[in-house]
């Protein structure tokens, strides 16, 4: 059965979730990536949209003008790790509950998720049309001066996912667990190959 989170999300709604769980999101999802984070955290500019209990999407979409409004054409996740230096403080300042992106995030974000009872989730990267078809409407856009990818697109989504929990509210980090496994296997593989590529003799 599909586990669906609906915004506004409360701490108790996501307390039982653990890394590797698959969930879907219904409600408000706002795209926010590099410059959006930089403006709030480094430049001290207030975000023009409330994120309390809501979700952000590390994504820069392709949108099309549709009469007076906008239509989502293609919107997939971008590399979350680029926001690592801002995210802990971002969670604390905004009260955001669900951060959606691609790839893992680091120990600072994990600490932020633990302190702020928030999740980081992976939407499968490169699946931008799948994601766009789950956006019911673009409700508004803010900071359009940043250009199409960096603007804050306020979206209403329905059963947006699959979202794979990569950092849970206890601060467990799926990518950190995987990394230790990858590094151990890497050492074995490099040693084995090195014995076979001694071409300089």
């Amino acid at each position: 059965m599909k586990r669906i989170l609906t915004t506004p999300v409360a701490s108790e709604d996501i307390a039982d979730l653990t890394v590797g769980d698959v969930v879907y999101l219904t409600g408000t999802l706002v795209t926010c990536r590099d410059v959006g984070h930089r403006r709030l955290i480094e430049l001290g500019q207030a975000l023009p949209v409330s994120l309390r209990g809501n979700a952000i999407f590390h994504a820069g979409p392709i949108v099309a003008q549709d009469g007076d409004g906008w239509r989502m054409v293609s919107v997939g996740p971008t590399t979350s790790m680029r926001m690592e230096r801002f995210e802990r403080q971002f969670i604390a300042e905004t009260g955001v509950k669900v951060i959606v992106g691609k790839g893992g995030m680091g120990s600072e974000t994990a600490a932020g998720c633990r302190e702020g009872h928030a999740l980081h989730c992976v939407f499968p990267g490169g699946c931008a049309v799948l994601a766009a078809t789950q956006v019911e409407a673009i409700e508004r856009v803010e900071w359009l001066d940043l250009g199409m990818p960096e603007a804050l697109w306020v979206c209403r989504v329905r059963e947006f996912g699959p979202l794979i929990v990569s950092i849970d509210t206890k601060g467990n980090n799926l990518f950190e667990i995987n990394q230790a496994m990858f590094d151990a296997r890497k050492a074995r593989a490099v040693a084995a190959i090195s014995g076979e590529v001694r071409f300089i003799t």
Partner: protein
Amino acid sequence: MTTAQHAATAKAPARGLPIEKDEAARVLTDLMAKFTGYVGKHLPQDVLDKLAELRARETQPLSRVVYDAMFDNLEKADRLDRPCCQDTGALQFFVTAGACFPLLGELKAILGDALRQATKEAPLRHNAVETFVEQNTGTNTGTGIPWVDWEIVPGDDTCTIEVYMAGGGCSLPGAARVLMPAEGYEGVTRFVFDVITSYGVNACPPLLVGVGVSTSVETAAILSKRAILRPIGTRHPDPRAARMEVLLEKGLNEVGIGPQGLSGTCSVMGVHIEASARHPSTIGVAVSVGCWSHRRGTIRIQPDLSYEVLSHKGVRL
């Protein structure tokens, strides 16, 4: 000016342009705009085949969820005629042009115009930010974008163009270093693994890994990019290089990065090596990666502007 005069001024061989040069430029611009848009919406056949194989081999339930989403996405992109990934890249064109191709002198301008047209028609995401000015041009063109890489073939009158559309995510792991010869090909191996098991995890695996082995960073880097333009599964003609491709591929798959780095049966779609002769004192090594959504398209254009798409099946532009 007549076609015959054009052929004479362009020093084209018997098969010259059938129409006025300006009109021909418009035709080629339109063709390249449509092809660029197409490449953003459909993966080439070799990539589709490899992804289907990796999907069938995947055993981890979570990773199977991801493969299902990937194929669902490709089907939707095709049906809705939309870019399959929102990041349609800072466009690169790798041109192999005959010195006698009749529009050789116009081609660079044509590719820029085609990109501006595709940006509106496809549409493509606005991905050209002028550096220092730090403003998005909104047209996908700017200083050095599209990036055009040239190889000129003497005596030939056709033109083969590789359109390459890489998202930022799979450009991020790109790295190059110059090793001391004592580090040998063992050092090359370590460098490739270090890059792929760190930055590669977040670059939308399963990845296509390109390795350049040469003298310096920039020569190794361009070779590494050319390596991922090769059709998946082709092997380097040198038996040692081909063997190393297989070893790296097998070794990286044993790491089990899985789709989206969530761990799984495989890590890569393939490993390709391109190499040049090198200075005896250095080993330049570079890695470029293509994400699973490896949007590469190859089109061969005849001097009469008829064309053939080599990378995708059943294309009508």
